[in-house]
């Protein structure tokens, strides 16, 4: 099994074959992810007659009519801005509440722990559209209706389970000994957390942030019910997409995907900060 038994020249051959397979595998995975995205953008950037025609082209003709329609659409920049505000607020709320809970779940054994965990899971397991009616009634009565904060609270509810469970798994992967070592060196619990644990958990926190952002960004139903003047981009575009003509569907779909991709690109460094403990 081990490499040692294989004589020199053959071993090199095996390695080369292995490297080739490895490379081919990567290429295949990359294609698998990118080709559908490519099709989305081809359709978004093609003339309407090409989008509905057959056979399809595999290269966009850069007819920007459909995309331009969106940029000239009344209130689109305002909606974009609202979406960003809601998403950022969702991120802050869900991590601010979720990370402490995740830490508690990973570091302590206490009565009610399982209960809390199931509670968090339930939150994500229940279809939001059914909750929207009582929530909307509550929001109208309390004045949270049609505010960025109100919608962010609902989105934070959706993102919280992600934040709690992901930070829990990350904190669980960080040995307690590291923290204990810091305590013996005179750090308080808080100091130890901030100086030792937090840097290691950064990828996980970044991951929860990405999820929170993306969840908020793509959520339609609550956004459509709870915002009127302060519509988010998704509520603005997405709910009219499934009844719009095909070329606009694709242009709108692409318009929604793009900002999310830019956001992931911007935070990728933190998301994949794998120099944590591994390179200690």
């Amino acid at each position, binding site marked *: 099994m081990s490499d040692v038994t294989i004589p020199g020249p053959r071993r090199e051959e095996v390695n080369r074959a292995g490297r080739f397979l490895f490379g081919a595998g990567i290429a295949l995975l990359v294609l698998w992810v990118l080709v559908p995205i490519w099709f989305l953008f081809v359709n978004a950037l093609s003339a309407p007659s090409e989008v509905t025609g057959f056979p399809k082209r595999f290269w966009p003709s850069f007819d920007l009519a459909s995309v331009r329609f969106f940029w000239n659409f009344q209130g689109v920049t305002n909606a974009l801005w609202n979406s960003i505000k809601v998403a950022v607020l969702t991120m802050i709320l869900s991590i601010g509440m979720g990370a402490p809970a995740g830490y508690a779940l990973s570091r302590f054994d206490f009565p009610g722990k399982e209960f809390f965990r199931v509670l968090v899971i339930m939150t994500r397991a229940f279809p939001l559209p059914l909750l929207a009616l009582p929530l909307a009634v509550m929001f109208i009565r309390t004045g949270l209706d049609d505010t960025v904060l109100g919608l962010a*609270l609902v989105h934070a509810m959706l993102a*919280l389970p992600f934040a709690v469970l992901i930070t829990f798994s990350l904190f669980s992967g960080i040995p307690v000994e590291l923290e204990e070592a810091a305590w013996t060196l005179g750090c308080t619990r808080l100091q130890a957390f901030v100086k030792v644990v937090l840097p290691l958990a950064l990828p996980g926190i970044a991951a929860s942030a990405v999820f929170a952002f993306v969840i908020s960004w793509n959520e339609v139903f609550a956004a459509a019910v709870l915002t009127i003047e302060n519509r988010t981009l998704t509520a603005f575009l997405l709910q009219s997409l499934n009844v719009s003509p095909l070329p606009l569907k694709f242009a709108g779909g692409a318009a929604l995907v793009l900002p999310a991709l830019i956001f992931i690109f911007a935070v990728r460094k933190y998301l994949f900060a794998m120099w944590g403990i591994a390179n200690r």
Partner: protein
Amino acid sequence: MNRALPYLLLLPASLFLLVFFFYPFGLVVVESLTRGGEWTTENFTRMTGHWKFSTAFWNTIWLTAIVVPVQLIMALAMASVVQKLKTGRAGLLYIFAIPLGISDLAAGLVWLAIFEQSGFLNSILHAFGVIDRPQLYLGYQSLWVIFLAVCLAEIWRATAIMMVIIVAGMGLIPKEYNEAAEVFGASAWQRFTRVTLPLLRPSLQTALILRILMAFEVFAVVMALGGTTLPVLMGETFQWQFQLQDRGVAAAYAMVILGLSVAFSLVVLRLLHVPKGARI
């Protein structure tokens, strides 16, 4: 102080969920158990009595049972590939993470553009001369093709979620463990199954639970590709709530989704039990 600490850490999240989830959730539970103001189980008997219920139930289960394991394997493969890589790691990870930013509505749109009669798949086959004229894939008679298409779309869309969590978890596994195993002559496969996987348990648990929760709520992609020919639980919930205007039965459906999600999550929690603080 130390005994109160975990509860203090959980307090914000708990209070938040109490107000924004449990209050509306309670109202919906009541709705599922009443009809015209009286306590009854009629909503549930109506639900189970409808001819689509068992189809929707089993479709949802089968979809989850097929999609989630495939995704787990793919996510592990992607994460391992990325870890092995010396150059281009960040770029590859970003590509793998792209589907994160795509909402289920947009994903349904993309995959419909691939599978529909005048879509990209037919265009590709046509370009290579495999077929003379467009083939029909998503017809109601070939239910398994629709099912397969939904599986592919779901795998494409939601593998990234698991991958990101797993990548973050893998980053926390100390390199020394793998190096030590290598010194003792363990093959790459042995190192993966004996060292990496067990240490990855917290992240695997989180990734699986979050993915299962979302799998039971699968809806938009199925709707885009299969219409009503492939009923799923979430689709029926929407149908009863909005088209049939019977909120009681819709609430009953939601309870079924909730029950399934919690049950499966508990199974995952038991199977991949994570000890406190991961003293490794």
